[in-house]
């Protein structure tokens, strides 16, 4: 005890811990840190005084790997493994970046298929996000209902490109496969199957009073703070900022579809609370279904491999491309030195940036709220640590 009194304990940021405070390590092995995030909590009883996130436990040297690849194509499987529950979005952003460097225009059919799969992936990813969020709050059953629907989406993926999780489906200039026969019907069937399920989630979880009480007015992230911290995706929209790259910095063929950007309105609490972030995801799923239906109806014919270049050797230069992934803005900064190997690839992953705002909104909350807030930011550690 004596040494504690003479040499005060400090957190890793150098903050001195007061006598009534306690440091609690939440993670890296903890049920609700969604992987291997470690949160160093300074708690005073149940109240959280400070949160210091520690990341890097899942660092797989993505950027270093990319520099060691022999060609640009080989990076795509690594991109998949960044955000492994929304792999298509990672691929798409990278592929777009290289296409921009090369100046390739992909056929219309490719764009339509990409939109369909990106939106299917968005639904699958949001299902995981909402399901695990329910799990964080203590509701187990919605999680499994959502996984049930996600399986059907993964079936669609599997029949198209052969993989369920890490697809390597979008290639530079095209796609690895065209749609399989019968895909359009199955996708349409999924859309009509999925719509009513959203009501079930709302009945069971979203509007459940206990869930509302746990999430409303908790972890409020005001819109301007969210922008300053670079938060994107559902986290930003949950804070009431009407911002979606699919509409505001349109890429691919998104400007051909009619849909709405879901924005948090503070329906049951304050704008920017956990419930809003959660609800934005639920509403986005509905909008994604709308986009998919339009894309399926307007699918043009064409060859998906016609624009795939034989050799990929971009001119020296750099490019930054950002797209709207399930968790926010995924940006790839690709530098080429004119060789067949990427010179430098930096991934600006949405969860990494969203997570940096976590301490800001956790201070003063309770331990159970930290779980609720961390769950509502919907981080995937594969992408935080890369």
């Amino acid at each position, binding site marked *: 005890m004596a040494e504690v009194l003479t040499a005060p304990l400090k957190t890793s940021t150098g903050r001195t811990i007061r006598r009534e405070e306690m440091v609690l390590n939440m993670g890296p092995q903890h049920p609700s840190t969604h992987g291997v995030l470690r949160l160093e909590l300074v708690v005073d009883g149940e109240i959280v005084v400070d949160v210091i996130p520690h990341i890097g436990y899942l660092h797989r040297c993505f950027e270093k790997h990319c520099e060691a690849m022999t060609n640009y194509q080989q990076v795509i499987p690594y991109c998949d493994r960044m955000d492994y529950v929304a792999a298509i979005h990672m691929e798409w952003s990278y592929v777009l970046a290289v296409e921009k460097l090369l100046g390739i225009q992909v056929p219309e059919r490719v764009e339509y298929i990409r939109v369909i799969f990106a939106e299917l992936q968005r639904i699958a990813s949001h299902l995981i996000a909402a399901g695990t969020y329910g799990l964080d709050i203590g509701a187990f059953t919605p999680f499994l209902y959502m996984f049930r629907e996600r399986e059907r989406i993964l079936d669609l993926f599997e029949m198209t490109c052969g993989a369920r999780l890490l697809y390597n489906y979008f290639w530079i200039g095209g796609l690895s496969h065209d749609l399989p026969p019968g895909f359009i019907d199955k996708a349409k069937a999924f859309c009509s199957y999925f719509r009513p399920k959203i009501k079930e989630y709302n009945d069971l979880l979203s509007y459940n009073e206990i869930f509302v009480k746990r999430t409303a007015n908790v972890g409020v992230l005001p819109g301007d703070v969210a922008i300053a911290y670079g938060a994107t995706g559902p986290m930003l929209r949950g804070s009431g900022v009407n911002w979606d790259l699919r509409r505001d910095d349109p890429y691919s063929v998104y400007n051909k579809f009619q849909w709405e950007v879901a924005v948090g309105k503070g329906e049951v609490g304050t704008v920017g609370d956990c419930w809003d972030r959660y609800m934005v995801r639920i509403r986005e799923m509905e909008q994604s279904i709308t986009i998919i239906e339009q894309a399926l109806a307007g699918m043009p014919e064409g060859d998906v491999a016609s624009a795939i270049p034989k050799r990929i050797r971009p001119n020296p230069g750099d490019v*930054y491309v*950002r797209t709207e992934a399930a968790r926010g803005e995924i940006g790839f900064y690709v530098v080429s030195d004119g060789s067949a190997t990427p010179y430098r690839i930096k991934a600006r992953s949405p969860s990494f940036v969203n997570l940096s705002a976590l301490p800001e909104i956790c201070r003063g909350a309770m331990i159970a709220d930290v779980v609720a807030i961390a769950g509502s930011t919907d981080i995937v550690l594969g992408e935080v640590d890369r």
Partner: protein
Amino acid sequence: MTSQQICEKIRERFGPAIREAKTEGVPNPFVSVAPENLRDISLFLRDEADLACDSLMCLSGVDSGKGMLGAVYHIASTAHRHTVTLKVQVPAEKAEIPSVADIWPAANWHEREAYDLIGITFTGHPDLRRILLPDDWPGHPLRKDFKVPEFYHGMKVPY
């Protein structure tokens, strides 16, 4: 505003600070600025009403070779929906760039990452620790001259 106009606006205000600007003929227009003017330009970009670049999308450290390290700032405005790319180059032996973490809090972790992987010291950063790698990792792996150590705490590194 187009990147041409933004570039002109910066040039008007900080003429000599701009080292290089490419706004046409490249997939991503950029403005290369001197490190000592970075903070002023950043504040200008953020606070000027018709620029209003309130969001730092990305901050990438790059080993540009030839003994130079660089940081690339991709900045966007949510109100005007335009983007700016700033580039800063510093020599590797004295890799110090002023931090913009107080201008855009988003830069905090990005700068830590660039410090961790490239080895750029961001002066004035509130909490410049390694973020992805272990605290005692030798060197900065994304530098082109980085050699992977044989052993780390008795564990063989390249397997």
